[in-house]
């Protein structure tokens, strides 16, 4: 799957994982896909949940390395 926008959140912790992913989603168009990379374990659960709570669609969450995950989200609203 191809992402329309990439966001590297390695080294970021709460609340900036949320603030930055929220900003990145605001900056893409409805229907576009954002790829977020995180290395902060709670963010693997948190970032998708916050994005769902704001009405977006979480397409996948996958480990891509030791303690690194990729989150794919489609902007809905």
């Amino acid at each position, binding site marked *: 799957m191809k992402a329309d926008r990439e966001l590297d959140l390695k080294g970021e*912790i709460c609340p900036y994982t949320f603030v930055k992913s929220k900003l990145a989603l605001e900056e893409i168009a409805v229907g576009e896909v954002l790829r977020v990379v995180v290395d902060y374990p709670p963010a693997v659960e948190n970032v998708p949940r916050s994005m769902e709570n704001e009405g977006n669609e979480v397409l996948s969450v996958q480990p891509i390395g030791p303690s690194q995950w990729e989150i794919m989200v489609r902007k809905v609203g």
Partner: protein
Amino acid sequence: MPHRLKRYLGMELAPVAVRILRGDPAPPGGATGSPTYCDLVLRAARGERFVLDPASVRRLSCPNPELALGFREPRFADVQPRIEGGTTAVVIGGEEADVWLFILTPAQVTRLATLLGGMQVSFRGEMAVCGEATAQVYRTEKANLSFLCQGCRELSGYRDDQVVVGLTPAEVAAVGKKIEEGRKR
């Protein structure tokens, strides 16, 4: 008992009872707005009472407690400490407790630790008040200390010199008894 401990330690804020309901229906009056769990604990320490049900926990501005308190299971990566899924409601404040939360200064933790006969603490600064101080104490039935997490430090109203200790009701009773005996001597 928790109030005896409050006097003994010279606590500024009241101990907060946290009741974790598993399977029982949620009491009415789910918390409104989008505070954090840490905020609600701080407000409960000043006398308020809140109910978190599945709807109100989703409205919190921090998504950690939903996972840590067992309202849902993790989907993508296990995150600890947490209570297994199956929680139907959490009541913060009031008198009935599965876990007592104490908002303390480090100096007060020193005195409390002595009363407890020592503490084996475990914290990493993530999922702190909800995980380290509530969920872990509930699961292990052992006191724990949390230095809070970055989000809580930034978004909630805790002072830098405030930390949170979670105690089981049995530990609170035992410590209360020790204080009582100490007075008699």
